[in-house]
């Protein structure tokens, strides 16, 4: 039964040849019928709400495109699969590409999945437009020069922006600092970025407590107690999931929200759950790359927000825009490539360069893919207020910064870049 080496090699050689043949045999890119777009959206666990939000953006974009006659006259058809553990998600990705023969895959949020899918997309020569999970590791280590993988904005953008605002507006108003961040790469990278930037701005801070609750934890009473002992002037947190309201609620109940400054880089992801009852005014709150109530929101944005509110009785968050952008960008790129090809349908290899540098009007405003396949967008943060018509806090005034300002440029390490700032 055990195949000897020679047999094995001969056999495998023959087989691989046969397989290769067949793979070339199938048209990798059908030119008629609907365009198939694969979607990977988390549906269970901590990521589920974010996954749904992204899926809503994608669906809305697709419906609009189809209503307007599709892409170059071809309707868009979505094949949705679940993002779960890296292993299972890689298998789903393969299914989309090999079995459903989709033209492009949109989605992916979790850092582990992000790290796994990058190489797989390259190996399978399958276009992948991620929504999120652009970790330092994911970008630097896995695929230095990606061709098929297009990533979202850096994970640290929100921290960088929040840190700059903190340094500018609160300099001298705080000295002792505590960090409570989810215990995984996202949390650690953001906290590290914050510390680096404080240092860069020459702000003397003393870290009195560093807490790392598990992502998705539902009880922070012990952490809050630890914070009470530490008595920091400022608490930095990049919570983005259900843990945000729980932490704020328990922190408020313990009286931490009076006299302590809060920096919530990403809380806007679950903004509706940040009830006025326990969310103080004047805290720095980040909404990432989309703020549902931006005073100067585009007509497109207003329309989406209305639709979202009517359909789901919820106000949308940034992930919807990540989703929307991937579809809109793909459409633009295909049309761009087609124009270059004299109107005939472009090959995937022609779409990729068209995606590089493509700029489209996304929900939150103009967005583009950089030549190194990293997304560029505008970030929205601001100081919480209760003066609104909701039962949750919103921000006013709204600060905006572009990724040109808060995202490390191509080829530069995050910290080298931060250190190169002139301040």
């Amino acid at each position, binding site marked *: 039964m055990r195949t000897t080496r020679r047999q094995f090699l001969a056999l495998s050689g023959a087989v691989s040849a046969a397989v290769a043949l067949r793979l070339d045999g199938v048209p990798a890119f059908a030119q008629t019928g609907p365009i198939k777009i694969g979607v990977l959206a988390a549906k269970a666990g901590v990521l589920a709400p974010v996954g749904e939000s992204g899926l809503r953006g994608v669906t809305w974009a697709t419906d609009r495109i189809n209503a307007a006659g599709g892409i170059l006259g071809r309707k868009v058809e979505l094949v949705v699969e679940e993002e779960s553990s890296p292993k299972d998600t890689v298998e789903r990705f393969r299914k989309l590409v090999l079995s459903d023969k989709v033209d492009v895959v949109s989605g992916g949020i979790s850092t582990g999945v992000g790290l796994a899918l990058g190489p797989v997309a390259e190996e399978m020569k399958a276009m992948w437009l991620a929504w999120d999970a652009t970790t330092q590791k994911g970008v630097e280590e896995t695929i230095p020069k990606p061709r098929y993988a297009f990533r979202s904005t850096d994970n640290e953008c929100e921290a960088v922006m929040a840190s700059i605002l903190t340094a500018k507006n609160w300099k001298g108003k705080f000295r002792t600092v505590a960090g409570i961040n989810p215990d995984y790469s996202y949390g650690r990278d953001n906290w590290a970025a914050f510390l680096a930037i404080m240092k860069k701005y020459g702000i003397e801070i003393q870290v009195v407590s560093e807490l790392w609750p598990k992502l*998705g934890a539902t009880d922070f*009473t012990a952490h809050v*107690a630890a914070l009470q002992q530490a008595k920091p002037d400022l608490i930095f947190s990049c919570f983005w999931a259900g843990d945000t309201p729980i932490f704020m609620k328990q922190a408020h109940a313990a009286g931490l929200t009076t006299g302590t400054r809060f920096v919530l880089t990403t809380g806007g992801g679950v903004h509706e759950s940040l009830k006025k009852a326990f969310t103080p005014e004047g805290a720095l709150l980040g909404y990432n790359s989309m703020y549902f109530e931006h005073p100067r929101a585009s007509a497109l944005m207003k329309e989406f927000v209305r639709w979202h509110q009517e359909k789901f009785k919820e106000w949308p968050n940034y992930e919807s825009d990540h989703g929307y952008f991937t579809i809109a960008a793909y459409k633009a790129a295909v049309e761009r490539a087609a124009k270059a090809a004299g109107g005939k349908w472009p090959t995937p290899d022609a779409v990729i360069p068209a995606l590089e540098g493509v700029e489209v009007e996304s929900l939150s405003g103009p967005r583009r893919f950089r030549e190194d396949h990293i997304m560029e967008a505008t970030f929205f943060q601001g100081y919480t207020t209760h003066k609104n018509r909701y039962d949750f806090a919103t921000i006013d005034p709204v600060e905006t910064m572009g990724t040109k300002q808060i995202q490390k440029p191509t080829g530069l390490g995050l910290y080298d870049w931060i250190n190169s700032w002139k301040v």
Partner: protein
Amino acid sequence: MLGGTFHAAVLFLVAAGLQLVFGVQRILNLACGSFYALGAYLGVSAVTWALGAGLPAPLFVVVLIAAGLALAAIGPPVERILRTIYDRDESFQLLLTFALVLMFEDVIRFVWGTAPHQLGSVYLVYGQLRIGGSTVPVYNLVVIAAGGSIALGMGWLLTRTRFGRIVRATAENREMSEALGVDMTRVYRRVFTLGVALGTVGGALVIPATAATSEMGIELIVEAFAVVVIGGLGSMRGAAAGALIVGLLKAGAIAVWPEVEMLAVYVVVIAVLVLRPAGLFARAAA
């Protein structure tokens, strides 16, 4: 310190349910975490509805407990399913409860969706207290008190009532009490339902202080499991002690060395299993 106790109180309720069922039915019920989650979600829905219907806020606790108890109604049917394999190897019973965990997780997603559910403001209805320089919401104390009194109540139920004697007898020796004409079917149904109730009430009680998320159950199982191992399988006192140990251990770790929060718990669990496999309170009655 109080933080740990608060967590311990909730842990105890779930662990107690686990203990009771194991003590009598010899089933290690992984689904206890799911009951906890269900209780939390229903608690949110019930209170939100009640407040909407004009219930004076301070009374929300009553609604929570009512919701938890009402949910215990799923006890009998679930017990009916488990009954089909009482005569089988423990491994199969463990697996069946694992199946329940998978199913309940999706039931929750189906009914309540994936977004976290929470009660906005009732948490602070009872105000706050200043204890030893730190502010503590009175509701935390309410939960701790509830946990404590339920513990005492269980103690009384098990030692002073006829039902309790039957339960203890069954836990000691099933054949014997069967021979004495005890209706096992009934005892099992009641015990299991009581176990469910402890979990659901626990989930309902904790919810004002936190938010209901679909994975809260799976997260808690492992901790509750740690509690019963440390305390000793089937022992009510063990559940109480174990819950306190785990709660305070985590709180302590968070205060001193956050990195090892969960690690510390597992290490203690293994230490107990190795040094004292029967648990710290092995001898105590179920």
